[in-house]
């Protein structure tokens, strides 16, 4: 009987071939990387001793450094992250709207918007900071712009995707009553994407707090400058104070985001 000769296979041959190709590719990439990468294993053996040394140099903490240099830099970091996020949202909303193919049904414009978003995301915030430091000189302005330009891609991409996943119904209803485009956006799209929008904005702000803490390493202002100074002079007891401060701020930001999220979403 033919029925009894049925064989069960989890994947079609095509699926199997693709998976095999993936595993082969992954193995080759990892193998080649491991072989070629310039790693000196002795350094790894040395690690415990170096870490112990690190902690010895960090202790006791130099709390005086907080009042001297860290506190002001901390405030500046907060400003950089927040202002950068606000700026990014202002710039990202139009780009995100242009990227949404249901809102702007013209393919070249969608692609242009996507290109802007990809470029923004591909360049790291530290690299953006290097660029803006070169243009505007060291300081918080460069940091703010770096945060803003890095965030455009993130916010714009997610906002555009949220717009594309809106339901057609309410929008058709508004078109049907002859509403002008601005009203269609405000009363048709916006209510649908508003929760996503707030969630994206808060998420990005949380990330930006972390990112703005390192911008100072390339001179773009904020608490990273204090860290850079301490590191350059090898004052690990001061660096440890900065690290603990960053830890506290990151934790506080996470708590704040969780609280706001449960409030407004």
């Amino acid at each position, binding site marked *: 009987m033919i029925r009894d000769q049925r064989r069960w296979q*989890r994947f079609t041959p095509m699926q199997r071939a693709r998976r095999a190709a993936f595993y082969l590719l992954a193995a080759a990439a990892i193998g080649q990387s491991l072989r070629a990468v310039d790693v000196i294993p002795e350094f790894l053996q040395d690690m415990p001793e170096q870490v112990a040394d690190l902690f010895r140099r960090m202790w006791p903490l130099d709390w005086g450094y907080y009042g001297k240099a860290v506190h002001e830099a901390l405030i500046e970091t907060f400003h950089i992250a927040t202002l950068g996020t606000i700026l990014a949202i202002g710039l990202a909303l139009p780009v995100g709207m242009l990227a949404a193919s249901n809102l702007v049904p013209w393919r070249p414009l969608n692609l242009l918007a996507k290109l802007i978003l990809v470029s923004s995301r591909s360049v790291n915030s530290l690299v953006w900071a290097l660029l803006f430091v070169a243009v505007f000189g060291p300081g918080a302005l460069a940091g703010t712009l770096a945060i803003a330009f890095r965030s455009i891609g993130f916010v714009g991409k997610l906002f555009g995707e949220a717009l594309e996943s809106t339901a057609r119904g309410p929008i058709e209803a508004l078109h049907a009553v002859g509403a002008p485009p601005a009203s269609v956006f405000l009363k048709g799209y916006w209510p649908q994407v508003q929760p996503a929008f707030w969630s994206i904005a808060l998420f990005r702000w949380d990330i930006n707090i972390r990112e703005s803490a390192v911008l100072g390493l390339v001179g773009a202002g904020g608490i990273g400058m204090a860290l850079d100074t301490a590191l350059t002079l090898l004052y690990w007891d001061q660096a440890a104070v900065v690290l603990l401060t960053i830890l506290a701020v990151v934790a506080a930001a996470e708590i704040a985001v969780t609280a706001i999220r449960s409030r407004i979403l």
Partner: protein
Amino acid sequence: MAAPAPAGAIAADGRALSIRDLVKEYRPGQPVLAGVSLEIAGRGLTAVIGPSGAGKSTLIRCINRLVEPTSGRILFLGQDLAALRGAALRRARRHIGMVFQEYNLVERLSVMENLLCGRLGYVSAFRAWARRFDPADIERAFALLDTVGLGDFANRRADALSGGQRQRVGIARAVMQEPDLLLADEPTSSLDPKTAVEIMELMTRLAGARDIPVIVNIHNVELARRFSRRVIGLAGGKVVFDGVPESLTEADLNRIYGGENWQEAT
């Protein structure tokens, strides 16, 4: 398979299920099951009826220990299920198939993979991971799919099936365990009336072929009457009726569900 056991031989027959003084309290002092004792003999379908919250679901889940009983004994296949732990409990569960109201399939897996989930008690995690199931099990799964009328659906994903088809897969998965007892928790409550009858017929047929007892929680008294050999009425965590369906009177139903007028209203 063993011949049907005569009534007097129940205690000696390891395949009978014997529940003794089963108590379950989710919160101390508020028993959901307040001392249930039952003997369920070698074969046939036993329907458990009763109002919502009477403890039907808890009773059936205590048997395979998806719910931890507070006290009492559950004797089956020569051991006390209520006292088992770890690997011994898993070994005992292999022998008890279960059918669920919401089917409890893995939606993203194919029908065949869902069926093979019934063999997980016998297969190591690694073999399950690699889908290296026993060819004999796969053979049997195909045969079972033919039996439940889903022969061409083996590679279909479970989320592409209708409710009735999903429940057929759920039953086939339970039978894949080659169980000595089949439990079913409201297996027809999410289905339309015609499909519900088909599902009850299918369960009766498959359990009859394996000559094993079936315990079904059921809301629909008509279905209970039609398919069961024995009806157990549960109310307030206690057995208030136990007999053949023919002896189930309106007075009994009032005792089980409480109140007087609800039957006229329907």
